[in-house]
């Protein structure tokens, strides 16, 4: 089996990840996340002052701004704003910061497909960097069902998306429990829930659940990557004290 993306040999292979946190000096938190040549930067400001008309007495107001790489923000960007906001609202412990605002700005830096999944991953890293209290972290992956081969391809590029019969983006949370004899490796996964699922195109029920399964497995790699990224940053901060 071969993919249009020549750098990958298997259908269930993700592109290489890259991430970087605390890049911007004016924001309270920021991060960049890449899936190969798709790259998204996210900034977080808050809990900060909020406009009176947006103020909520019992929790923080979450505002998401999605900015496209080319052109002015359109319907697609508004839809992404809504997807991000509605997925994040239950995840953020906004009750801890009533009458404040948390502003999240998402900027596409390079677009080679799977931008929404990339944006989700960049956003969670930026929220972690900003120290916003969260119920759990999340991870996102996109897959497609190829129109010709009916094969499920993970993390599609722009070129591969053009041949998609259907496109599916899944976001899963990651709750885990530190067992009694705790080491980093043997954290037990407890019930994982789907936070967001978006499908477009024509597909069967079977295909949908197969996609969900494959994405779920792939997201584990994203979760692991996020954990390692955060760990590395913390170790770097602490090295003067703990060396």
């Amino acid at each position, binding site marked *: 089996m071969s993919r249009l993306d020549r750098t990958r040999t298997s259908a269930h292979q993700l592109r290489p990840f890259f991430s970087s946190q605390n890049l911007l000096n004016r924001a309270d938190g920021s991060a960049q996340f890449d899936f190969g040549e798709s790259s998204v930067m996210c900034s977080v400001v808050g*809990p900060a002052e909020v406009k009176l008309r947006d103020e909520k007495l019992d929790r923080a107001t979450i505002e998401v701004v999605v900015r496209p790489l080319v052109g002015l923000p359109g319907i697609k960007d508004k839809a992404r704003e809504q997807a991000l906001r509605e997925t994040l609202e239950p995840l953020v412990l906004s009750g801890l910061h009533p009458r404040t605002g948390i502003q999240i700005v998402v900027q596409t830096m390079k677009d080679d497909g799977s931008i929404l999944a990339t944006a989700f991953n960049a956003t969670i890293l930026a929220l972690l960097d900003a120290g916003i209290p969260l*119920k759990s972290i999340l991870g996102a992956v996109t897959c497609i069902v190829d129109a010709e081969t009916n094969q499920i391809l993970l993390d599609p590029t722009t070129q591969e998306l053009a041949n998609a019969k259907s496109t599916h983006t899944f976001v899963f949370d*990651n709750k*885990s429990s530190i067992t009694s004899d705790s080491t980093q490796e043997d954290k037990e996964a407890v019930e994982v829930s789907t936070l967001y699922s978006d499908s477009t195109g024509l597909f069967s029920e079977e295909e949908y659940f197969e996609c969900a399964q494959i994405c779920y497995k792939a997201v584990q790699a994203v979760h692991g990557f996020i954990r390692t990224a955060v760990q590395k940053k913390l170790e770097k901060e602490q090295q*003067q*004290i703990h*060396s």
Partner: protein
Amino acid sequence: MASITTEEESKLLIVLPGDQLPESGLMEDSSAAHRLTLGPGLAPMDDDSITAVKAGILKHNAVGNRWWVESNQRRYVAAQGESIIGVVTGKSVEHYKVDIGASQPALLGVLAFEGATKRNKPNHNIGDLLYCRVSMANKDMEAELECMNPTTGKADGFGELKGGFVIKISLGLARRLLDPKNLVLRLLGQHIPFEMAVGTNGKVWVNSANAQHTILICNAIRNSEYLNSAECSAMVKSLVEKM
């Protein structure tokens, strides 16, 4: 019974939002009378589990069985008893409005100074820099400040900071600067005499004999965030040599 080891372990125990702490590990002895105190970064969830809500290092203090997550962020959230640096942004008959970098300006009573009376009280202008203590903070109200030690009524170093320069750093770095063993400050102190005030809100005030020295100290502090001991020594050395 096995318990979570943190300080004893050479490897830091890093937690991410959603990581659950088992009750068995939290309780040192299983007697019901034993109390558990949760600090920042940990919260009880709806399912009665105790879960990390911030990314950071899990810390434990046997006295009072205290558990918390040592995390880093840039946005300040006021907490009672902390010493902070603020800028006067407004004044009324009873209060000064002080910007402390939190979501809302804090209030400082015009009489919350050492020996202040209705007839004889310090007069501060907009733009003045004040070193204060947070006397009251909760999530629903503006924080309140005072410029004296509440038990003795003495100034204890609180009050206006005259001259010098201020920089903004991460809250984690500010806490590390307050450590008497802090490397970068010790190294700088060997070369340049200077005075400083560290606010836990990430504001650092530095004053020295001349501007060049103050600039150098500010740069060295900013640069020290992600350096290990050897790199930090080299960085200070190179800055001092260039002077």
